[in-house]
């Protein structure tokens, strides 16, 4: 094997690097937005200028001024403080939905995609059924009729999100299964559980992580939709979706009271979507799992 000494391998720089920096600017902005929401959720009471629930009917419905940077709502509550306080429900619920839905999705998707067989057929039957239905509408009916508040809404959304996540993870696991390195591991006698965790999962994980962010965005949009309809959070809670509903009637006097929470929802969801898309594209082009 004299010829065995192989030339130094070369890592050719691919054109995908093109415009990497330019592409990072929106991601940086997105990360800043996420950071602000996280800080507000963690330190809400400490940084809010006023008590978000303190009512003062004498100053109800006032536009922004020195005292109230974003004005007040009908009951005279400080809109800025309520937005800061609202970061908590905007962060915790969607996070639980994204992580919970993806956890179920990863387990079912890996089992169905890698093991196949009858289990997979059952899982896919369920996934296809759920996929063909409008999720949020189901959530509205269930949470509305059964009740249970914010956490019921979160649980219902976890269940409703899991089929789409299952489908994504399953597709990835299915793509891995016939690849030679998986079959080589089977031929070596590597136990099935080890193949799933050590060989398949690391290649599926990039997609899982990206979709947790994308799910967070959709979870926020869905959850605030429920709040907007008066489902989920109890009335009076500082929640962006709920504020939007309550303040839509003061659009003529203090429009910011309704517009600001709306913008917050859009900004937070967009930030998560941008990060998720960016991660997905990075992973896809890095060749991991290809």
């Amino acid at each position, binding site marked *: 094997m004299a010829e065995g000494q192989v030339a130094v391998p070369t890592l050719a720089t691919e054109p995908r690097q*093109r*415009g990497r920096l330019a592409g990072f600017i*929106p991601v940086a902005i997105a990360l800043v937005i996420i950071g602000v929401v996280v800080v507000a959720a963690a330190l809400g009471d400490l940084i809010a200028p006023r008590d978000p629930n303190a009512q003062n009917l004498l100053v109800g419905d006032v536009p922004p001024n020195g005292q109230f940077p974003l004005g007040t709502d009908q009951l005279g509550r400080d809109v800025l403080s309520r937005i800061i306080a609202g970061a908590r429900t905007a962060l915790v619920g969607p996070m639980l939905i994204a992580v919970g839905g993806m956890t179920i999705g990863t387990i079912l998707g890996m089992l169905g995609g890698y093991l196949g067989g009858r289990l997979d057929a059952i899982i896919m039957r369920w996934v296809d*059924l759920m996929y*063909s*239905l*409008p*999720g*949020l*509408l189901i959530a*509205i*009916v*269930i949470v*509305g*009729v*059964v*009740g249970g508040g914010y956490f019921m809404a979160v649980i219902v959304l976890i269940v409703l999100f899991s089929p789409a996540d299952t489908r994504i993870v399953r597709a990835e696991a299915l793509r891995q299964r016939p690849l030679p390195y998986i079959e080589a591991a089977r031929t070596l006698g590597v136990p099935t559980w080890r193949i799933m965790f050590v060989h398949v999962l690391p290649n599926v994980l990039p997609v899982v992580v990206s979709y947790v962010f994308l799910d967070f*965005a959709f979870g926020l*949009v*869905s959850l*605030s*939709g429920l709040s*907007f*309809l*008066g*489902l989920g959070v109890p009335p009076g809670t500082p929640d962006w*979706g709920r504020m*939007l*509903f309550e303040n*839509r009637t003061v*659009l*003529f006097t203090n*429009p910011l009271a*309704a*517009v600001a929470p*709306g*913008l917050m*929802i*859009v*900004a937070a*969801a*967009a930030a*998560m*979507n*941008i990060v998720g*898309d960016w991660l997905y594209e990075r992973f896809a082009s890095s060749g991991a799992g290809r």
Partner: protein
Amino acid sequence: MTLGWLARFLASRLLVLIPLLLVISFGVFSLLQLAPSTPERILLGGRPSTPEVLAAIRERYHLDDPFLVQYGRWLVGVVQLDFGTSIRAGEPVLPMIIRRLDITVFLGLFGFVIALVVGLLVGMVAALRRGSPLDRALVALSVVGVSAPAFASGILLLYLFGVVLDWFPVFGAGDGMLDRLWHLTLPAVALALSAMALIVKVTRAALIEELERDYVAFARARGLSFRRVLFGYALRNALVSVVTASGLVLIYMLTGAVLVEVTFTLPGVGSLLVEAVQGLDIPLVQGLVIVIAVFIVVVHLIIDILYRLIDPRIRFGGAHG
């Protein structure tokens, strides 16, 4: 593509879809049991209750029968288009729904057409100019669109075009075709925005993928015109993805309509559902869900037929090669 083929196809699909409807109807009927109150109290709807009244209600709604018998009785009614009586309004459910249907249908179709037409165009432009600043701006906008729930974008549109610019009315659904179009433009745009973003995303991705395929390069190498290659080759093959997305969008229009009708205070089916849910008007909720489920089943049927029209590989069932 003969009629016989269509009939066979419909028959095979209905074998799948009818059980789906049954599952949904069973779930809907079970709602009554899941609600945090006894069925008779719900059916009484907040009116003062005495043991006699409750007993009368139990009698009238056969609440002492086994659950499955109750379900069977209800199902027989549904099949005969008898959805029961609304608790709040005290009138039959179906006419209530039908009365509210036209606004929602108008709104949904209006929104769907906007989303599809604009989404397709924007997606095509982005795909053809991929990598350019224009493409990047369009992609960024579509990310914002996906992130904007219909009620949030609705409020923003309402404020911008209804209050600040005063171009569109803020309330009401309008009478007559043109007036309605004018009144429902903002709601339809709000409804279309996030759906449009999805269509943009899907169209762009599918078209870019197709444009990079060998058969597109080979078509260009043979000297076919750009227009022919774009429409006859790339777009034609990207259509399957777009149709899939359109189906999802059409179904999404239902959810969106609920939010938009509440945002713009429009008396449609969506706001009826919210009223029914909030008032625990279970028969009305059940009726609404069944109507919606039938709609969804029809959409899926149409999508399945479209697939077969578009792609011969699906049409021939992959039985060859």
